[in-house]
């Protein structure tokens, strides 16, 4: 995956800046790829099942919702924001789809129609949560951390209220079919959709005004505003995008399980943030790459699946994610400090 020239974490000035920028980016993605391969090797050595088609298919299936959340999180983090609500939104959207589809199914609506309406409802729920986040941040002036913490709590609570805390099963058979039929050996329909979303998200981030303005806002919102960019409107769109992708992730989890689980989103925001940050997005804003996020999501998913395969209790997952975030941020800060020493003597 390549990159636009605007967003870089390039170090010192040099004679051939373009070649240098390319080299640095390449190096970062190469390192991430190496880390991923090392993970796969490690877990395979611990348990050979890890390196089977079945395990890979599973990792890809787990990766799909994570990468969707992480794509949104990448945009948000590049604007110097954070979206803590995506996990809760995933859960709320998933159960909204499940409830809608079940009640349509029970009232005699055809399977495919019920499915389409349910998916639309889930996406609208995601968009709505994102819109609330965007408005709280830009119009009310809350810090992204506070605003999305509030919607995270509200979303998770609402999910429990509408489900009564239990799984929502009982949809038409199309649900499981759609979510689990495999093409080309590995790809399910949700995975194909994820790949399309990924390509579009990458193009938009690195090749369009929308992407360019995302970097500009995170880099210096005041300068962006002075350049005529509608910063508030752009931020609302970004949080709506993040919410929409969380809604889509909720649909995928629902399709895969065949039922709506009120707890399916729990802690997923941290996994998504870990993916973006491991992939090189800076929590201070202004930098991040879609290729890095893809690799970051692969690494986090592989670690989580691998730990389960080698028999680590699932409760350790959150701990591991926390450690991954801390390590990634520390590495970023150390290299940023080095780069700063390198520059500044211009």
């Amino acid at each position, binding site marked *: 995956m390549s990159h*636009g*020239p*605007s*967003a*870089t974490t*390039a*170090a*010192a*000035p040099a004679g051939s*800046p*373009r070649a240098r*920028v390319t080299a640095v980016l390449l190096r970062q993605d190469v390192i991430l790829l190496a880390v991923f391969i090392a993970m796969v090797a490690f877990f395979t050595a611990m348990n050979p099942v890890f390196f089977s088609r079945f395990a890979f298919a599973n990792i890809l299936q787990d990766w799909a919702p994570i990468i969707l959340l992480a794509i949104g999180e990448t945009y948000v983090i590049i604007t110097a924001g954070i979206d803590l609500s995506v996990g809760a939104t995933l859960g709320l959207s998933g159960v909204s789809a499940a409830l809608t589809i079940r009640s349509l199914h029970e009232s005699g609506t055809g399977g495919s129609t019920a499915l389409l309406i349910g998916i639309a409802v889930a996406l609208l729920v995601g968009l709505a949560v994102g819109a609330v986040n965007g408005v709280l941040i830009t119009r009310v002036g809350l810090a992204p951390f506070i605003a999305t913490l509030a919607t995270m709590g509200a979303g998770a609570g609402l999910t429990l209220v509408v489900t009564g805390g239990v799984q929502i099963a009982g949809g038409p058979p199309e649900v499981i079919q759609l979510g689990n039929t495999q093409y080309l050996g590995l790809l399910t329909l949700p995975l194909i959709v994820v790949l399309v979303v990924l390509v579009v998200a990458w*193009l938009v981030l690195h*090749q*369009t*005004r*929308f992407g*360019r*303005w995302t*970097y*500009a806002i*995170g*880099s*210096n919102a*005041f*300068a*962006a*505003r*002075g*350049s*005529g*960019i*509608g910063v508030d409107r752009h931020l609302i769109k970004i949080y709506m995008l993040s919410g929409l992708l969380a809604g889509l992730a909720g649909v995928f989890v629902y399709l895969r399980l065949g039922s709506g689980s009120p707890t399916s989103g729990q802690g997923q925001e941290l996994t998504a943030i870990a993916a973006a940050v491991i992939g090189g997005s800076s929590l201070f804003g*202004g*930098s991040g790459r879609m290729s890095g996020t893809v690799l970051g999501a692969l690494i986090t998913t592989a670690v989580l699946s691998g730990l389960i395969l080698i028999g680590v209790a699932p409760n350790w997952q959150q701990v591991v994610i926390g450690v991954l975030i801390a390590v990634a941020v520390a590495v970023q800060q150390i290299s940023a400090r080095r780069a700063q020493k390198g*520059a*500044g*003597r*211009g």
Partner: protein
Amino acid sequence: MADAPIYEARGISKSYGSVVALEDVDLSVHAGEVVGLVGDNGAGKSTLVKVLSGAHQPDAGSLHLDGQERSWRSPHEALEAGIETLYQDSGLCPDLTISGNVFLGREKLRGGLLGKLGLLDHRGMARIAHEELDRAGIGLTEVRRTVKDLSGGQRQAVAIGRAVAWARKVIILDEPTNHLGARQSGEVLRVMDKARERGLGVVFISHTLPHVLQVTDRIVVLRLGRVVADEPTSSFSPDTLLKVITGLGRSTADVIPEDAPA
């Protein structure tokens, strides 16, 4: 300079809560004229800049561009009308390249179908940014460098080059020579001369009075939100200018003798 001003503010007032930042302020600039705007800290210079550039709406007063009354609901509208502003300490996005900054908010799209899909013309923007910075007299043409890798002086040069490149009528510079060394300041002042030659109206805000006296045609002095002097630069000496700014002379007449050279 007998013709009508290209850009004019009349009777501008602006308060922040109970703080009166500007009170009944007039300011005008003609095409090909550099007007210096000076005053102590808190005199209201930056506030006036924000009103002129559309970032703030005045509580009272009116703006006139080319003799027509205009009002800006956003900085974007003022930019569209040909008014470029370089804000104090705000100029650039450090994570973008020089070219990305020059084109920020005005990105050029590719031709054909790809352009219709919204894809950026990275190469075209780099080429034009290079040409424009060159034309503005700025010797920084490696436009694919990231701005955070530049020194403070280089960043300022890019910010000014960008404003000059886009300005069609007026360019407003809020303390562009702040934090710059002598040589770099000299470059900034030269860029201002070039802007004047191109027929732009230039508003130059600075605390460095020798720079103001060297480059401007006329000086407007703000004190506590009011205009206390608006005279040709030739009627000030460094000493009298300082007195008007600080208010140590009771009025302009006290510090500028009647027979001052006009």
